[in-house]
């Protein structure tokens, strides 16, 4: 299929040892950074897949999390601020044989790269997009990010932020993403499950990871990260199951009009009108309502909001080429001789 001037080399088999996905570079994140957990989770997930190491490409922009490719013993490209997604789009479409991952942050993906974010998702490019959301600019030492809370004091907002934050999951759903999920860096088991599913999704798989920045925004997601309070502050989305949470499994989510509300009940008697999660729903309406739940009034939903299969950009691109080849000459000389007649 691939027409190129490069030699065909023998491939290797899948790697089962997650340590073999680590590069020889020293990991230079701050001690205690949430990024370490994500790195470990992804290395573990790759070792569980039947894909040889050389078929992985990790693409990133700029920011702490964007150092990610340097720490992976795969192909990697640390690019420029905000532009990982269009670069990854070129990589994936030029060689659909690769599994392409994007490591990005809240500033990289949603501020400087905001435009690329919505367009990569709407095109359903087959990418695994991991957004490390610590609600702060870390690499530039502590300025406001587009996910920072209203009123937040940072180096660039000493009087408190006067900007309203945006919600990455809401944005992903509004951008027609076919796989949308949220996980916690502090919950390795839960995150591993989510990332494995993202890895197997065909199309854009978007995962927001809530993680801490120990230096510039310590306690970014305190309540959901702390093991002690987590089960009260988090609701885990499970396909086909009602939305129930709490250490005692005695709380649930139902709709009041268009607004989700928390309802308490006796653990063995959940009310019938709890929201039942459907990640495969054709329209993302319910997923959108759930995405609007935030830690101020509700538990934070984690898990897979949406997982639907739609043709991806590279599949459609290849399909058009195959179709065009059936109806128009594939001989360059014929095209050069007369464009009008040779064009499809």
């Amino acid at each position, binding site marked *: 299929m691939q027409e190129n001037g490069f030699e065909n080399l023998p491939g290797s088999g899948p790697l089962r040892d997650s340590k073999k996905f680590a590069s020889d570079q020293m990991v230079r994140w701050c001690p205690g950074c949430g990024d370490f957990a994500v790195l470990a989770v992804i290395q573990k997930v790759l070792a569980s897949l039947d894909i040889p190491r050389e078929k992985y490409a990790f693409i990133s922009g700029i920011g702490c999390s964007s150092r990610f490719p340097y720490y992976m013993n795969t*192909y990697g490209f640390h690019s*420029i601020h905000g532009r990982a997604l269009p670069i990854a789009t070129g990589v994936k479409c*030029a060689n659909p044989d690769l599994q392409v991952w994007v490591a990005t942050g809240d500033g990289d993906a949603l501020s400087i790269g905001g435009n690329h974010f919505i367009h990569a998702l709407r095109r359903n490019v087959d990418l695994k997009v991991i957004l490390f959301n610590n609600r702060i600019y870390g690499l530039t030492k502590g300025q406001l990010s587009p996910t920072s809370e209203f009123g937040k004091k940072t180096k660039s907002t000493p009087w408190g932020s006067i900007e309203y934050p945006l919600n990455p999951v809401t944005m992903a759903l509004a951008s027609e993403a076919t796989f949308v999920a949220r996980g916690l860096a502090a919950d390795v088991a839960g995150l591993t499950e989510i990332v494995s599913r993202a890895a197997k999704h065909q199309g854009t798989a978007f995962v927001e990871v809530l993680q801490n920045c120990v230096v510039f925004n310590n306690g970014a997601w305190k309540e959901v990260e702390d093991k002690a309070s987590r089960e009260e502050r988090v609701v885990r989305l499970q396909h086909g199951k009602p939305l129930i949470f709490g250490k005692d499994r005695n709380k649930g989510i139902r709709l009041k009009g268009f607004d989700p509300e928390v309802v308490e009940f006796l653990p063995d008697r959940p009310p019938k009108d709890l929201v039942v999660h459907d990640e495969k729903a054709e329209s993302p309406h319910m997923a959108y309502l759930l995405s609007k739940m935030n830690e101020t009034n509700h538990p934070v939903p984690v898990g897979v909001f949406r997982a639907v299969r739609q043709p991806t950009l590279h599949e459609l691109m290849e399909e058009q080429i195959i179709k065009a080849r059936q109806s128009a000459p594939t001989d360059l*000389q014929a095209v050069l001789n007369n464009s009008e007649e040779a064009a*499809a």
Partner: protein
Amino acid sequence: MNKLKAVKPKSQSSEEIDSVTIRFAGDSGDGIQLTGLQFSTATALAGNDLSTFPDYPADIRAPLGSLFGVSGYQIHFSSSRAFTPGDAPDVLVAMNPAALKVNTKELRKGGLVIANSDAFNTQNLGKAGYATNPLEDGSLSDFRVIPVELSRRTGEALQGLPLTKPQAERCKNFYALGMMYWLYDRPMEGTLKWIETKFKKNPVMAEANKKALLAGNAFAETTELFGQYYRIKKSPVEPGVYRNVTGNEAMALGLLTAAQLSGLQLWYGSYPITPASEILHELSKYKNLGVKTFQAEDEIAAVCSSIGAAFAGALGTTGTSGPGVSLKSEALGLAAIVELPLVIINIQRGGPSTGLPTKTEQSDLFQALYGRHGECPMPVLAAATPADCFQMAIEASRLAVKYMTPVLLLSDGFLGIGAEPWRVPDITKLVKFPPSKLPPPDKFKPYQRDPTTLARPWALPGMSGYEHRIGGLEKADITGTVNYEPENHERMCRLRQAKIDKIVSEIPPMDVLGPKKGKVLVLGWGSTYGAITAAVSRLQAKGESVASAHLRYLNPLPSDLGEVLARYERVIVPELNLGQLVHLVRDRYLVDAQGLNKVKGLSFKVAEIENAVMALLAGRRD
């Protein structure tokens, strides 16, 4: 339906002429570009060399009859070489008063005006600022004026067809085209065939346009309106397959060919921008050749997608105009430091900012040479004619792959939309340029350079044993890991510069037109080639000691340029900017070169260059 007869042999007398320049002008909705394009195609089929200049407003449909809404299409064709679209039209076809008003000052004295007299009503005259009707008040006494009731005559010719009056009226451009075909003895078969294909789904309009064309032709034949018709001998050309191409078409075909010669998949990531969009349109047609085109969400995404595609092993290319290059410039820095092949095409237009989007200019040379952050050298090439865009697209791709570098290729609005006949090459005769072979995996280092070219190896994701990381942070020499050491940074900056400098060995010696030494050298680059060559040829015919040389490589410059410059007493550099190449030449070679500069959104007239050189020869400095 298809019983329209071919035209009978001509009954009137004829005269043989060497060349003629015709300008079609009218409202932007009058089908002027289409008419001009059809005339060009017929002229190419008739075997004449030609050069065209489509000149249209930035507005899609400017207010009817307004001066700023006038769209023009000029074509110069000849029995010898047609280097430019012609300085002053010999014939003006004016569809309304505004078209007449805008174009009469350009028209040659004694030239012919064919005007659609039906459009010369009070309202249109007023819009064009005419107090009285110029077709009647004697103000056009310098020209030979032939008023034709185009609208009425077209309407009559189409009687019996189920058309509304405005629909019939819209066919008047074909009526006028039919007249012009008669006057210059052009074949009509091509246009008749084109109409059939174009209006396949609307047989009534197909019939109407064909009828209008033939009626216009018959009208010219039977009424003795012009007195005689003209014949222009075929231009002497090398044998081969010829077709008419615009620069943008040639650019697209060049990229397709480059992909084949390199054995790489072609990726073209682009964002719509005037006057570069046609490259995207053209390439999008050729999915049958396996090209992948990507209309990105913005200029930055366009270039980044191409960088990504290059990382994955494709021939990554992107095209835009000056404002788009500004947006891409950060990514160009990335492409330079990661040393991936990339072709960036700039179809220059009048700037700064949105400037004159549909007009031509050469004012992005400094941007191409210097417009990036950091020490960021990049090869810069420039096409000289529309057909040359084909060759230069291949050359830019070849250098990009061989030297593992982004390459900037400059064209401009004049080349992009202007057309000329192009001899289609036999692709089996073109030189292939596959990427260099890789060392075995255990010997592979991402920044271990080829000693001759200084290019780094191009190992692709998917190849086992070559896994590596690249990125925008400074690279350690050889290993390519992140490195912040002062000595390493300077070494890498110098290596990147040295690599680009090595490209000088690829550049052929300067091709000087005229005496090897003498009084004046006219030095040009880009789209001024035609006007310079025509002007210098005329001066040489007059016996003047004048030569010209043209640069297609702007960085690095040809190694013998300094030597060539030194052989002439004076050097003059015509440019469609306020003096950019002239600055470079003065800086580099300490030559007292003089600029000839124009920034009107228009290309040079031959006479402008000729006069400037005459002034220089006479010792005047303008």
